[in-house]
């Protein structure tokens, strides 16, 4: 009897084993990602203050949120930041990739120099740029010492301009990575196509505008997805570089969520701001992931 059931059990176990191996990860994802999202969505409709409670208040938190000047500052800032960050990183990355692709001597030295900032924490990047841009000891003072007395660069202390210093530091950190993505795309382009176009008399400019750049479409898309996702999540860099200041001038949705939830004890409002951040990212990511998976399946 045992002889007949033992192999049976073995084969059935083998059938189930793959799913058993995957199950913990799947369960953890369902609980810690989707369960937690549901929890936060529910909280955003409750009057939670310092601790979660379940007193239903409907859309009140969302109404309050959009009436808050700090949230409006955060929305304006993320719009400015994300647009400039994505556009400049893409432009710089593409330009560096195209130039590096011109049989450059020393490419092996330049590439890691462009890429290394990506290895650093945003806190390190923020610290470096914070002091470098500080008028008291950094760039402005250096220029004065070098004899350019009228040089002024006080963006980091200026409520209207501080947001642009975050763009500078963020571009410094990620543009090399974008360069690597475009370079990979460029190296994948068949040289025969370019040669054929050259024989037809196309100039370099036409070659890039009409042939190369359209062929890089997938790289543009990945760059856009990665950069927009990094932009919306940007928290550490703001904390390290400006601390959200001067005043609240560089407030972003991520810093807003943290301060309302954990230091101002307005958990309901904090949760509603997190839900809006998720919705924004989902609007970008879901179509992209859907298309990717459909193509592969």
């Amino acid at each position, binding site marked *: 009897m045992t002889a007949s059931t033992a192999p049976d059990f073995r084969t059935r176990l083998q059938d189930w084993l793959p799913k058993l191996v995957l199950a913990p990860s799947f369960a953890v994802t369902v609980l810690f990602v989707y369960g937690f999202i549901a929890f936060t969505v529910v909280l955003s409709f409750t009057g939670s203050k310092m601790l979660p409670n379940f007193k239903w208040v409907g859309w009140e938190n969302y109404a309050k949120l959009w009436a808050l000047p700090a949230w409006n500052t955060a929305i304006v800032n993320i719009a400015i930041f994300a647009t400039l960050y994505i556009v400049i990183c893409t432009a710089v990355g593409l330009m560096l990739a195209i130039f590096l692709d011109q049989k450059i001597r020393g490419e092996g030295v330049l590439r890691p120099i462009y*890429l290394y900032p990506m290895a650093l924490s945003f806190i*390190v990047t923020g610290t470096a740029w914070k002091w470098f841009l500080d008028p008291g000891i950094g760039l402005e003072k250096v220029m004065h010492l070098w004899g350019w007395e009228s040089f002024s660069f006080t963006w980091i202390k200026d409520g209207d301009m501080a947001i642009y210093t975050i763009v500078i530091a963020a571009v410094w950190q990620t543009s090399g990575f974008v360069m690597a993505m475009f370079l990979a795309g460029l190296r994948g382009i068949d040289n025969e196509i370019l040669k054929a176009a050259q024989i037809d008399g196309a100039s370099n400019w036409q070659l890039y505008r009409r042939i190369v750049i359209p062929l890089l479409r997938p790289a543009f898309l990945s760059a856009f997805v990665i950069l927009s996702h990094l932009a919306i999540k940007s928290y550490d860099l703001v904390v390290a570089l400006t601390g959200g200041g001067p005043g609240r001038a560089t407030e972003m949705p991520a810093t807003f969520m943290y301060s309302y939830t954990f230091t101002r004890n307005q958990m309901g409002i904090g949760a509603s*701001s997190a839900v809006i951040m998720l919705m924004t990212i989902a609007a970008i990511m879901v179509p992209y992931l859907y298309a990717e998976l459909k193509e592969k399946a």
Partner: protein
Amino acid sequence: MAAQSHGVTQDTAVSTGRVTRALIYLLLLLFALFYLLPLYVMGINSVKPLAEITGGNMMALPEVWTLEPWRSAWSTAQIGVEPTGLKPYFLNSILMVAPAVAISTIVGALNGYVLTKWRFRGDTWVFGLMLFSCFIPFQIVLIPMAVVLGTLGLAGSVPGLILVHVVYGIGFTTLYFRNYYAAFPTELVRAAQIDGAGFFQIFWRILLPVSGPIAVVSVIWQFTNIWNDFLFGASFGGTSQPMTVALNNLVQSSTGVKEYNVHFAGAILAALPTLFVYIVAGRYFVRGLMAGSVKG
């Protein structure tokens, strides 16, 4: 001449004139300076006495070279209320990173193996759900995570942080291994199965030996992300804060004289492990990524 450069470099067939080339080199060098500048400023000012920074030129080489700022950042600087330096936090980070990277990479490899070689109905959906979790803004999970860690008694502990990083890391590691194993011939797996090899035997004997390149990608990715994380560390670190949080506390501290040289030394200390990994293995990382692990 330009048209023949096939083979080794794979550079473009486009050829450029002399003036254009000079301009290209100039621009590439200017950008190299831009990327190196902050590193130079940090490095040079971390070996200067404070007076030379506040009273002198940030770009100048030190007149007096000193390692005192490094010593201070490592072992005596005031972090929060304790004059411990960054040393204990550095150890926290290591204790957190090593298990988190190892667990998430192993789990990712097994998941990728199942999702490509033992496909079942709905596996794409399972993968899609795991994949989306890589891209959520973590703000959406902060509150419930705080509640859960508190309930489990893991709040403010290294094991708590390991749990958090594994949970939100397996999406990426699964993605890497899945895409890598997808290119591996399934016939070999089927043949081994017919020969009587089991699930783990096939993984161990056939897939694992060829997983080197993607394991490097996964380890570097996870190591960099977890070491550099600030949000989870600041939210759930408690008394076991990682290096990034300690560095931020050091730099933002509002009491006393701002010791810029110590801040810079601390920043470099926080950056050293990832820089080291990047310098040693960065080449393999880029190569692995380009081999199609992140397809666009």
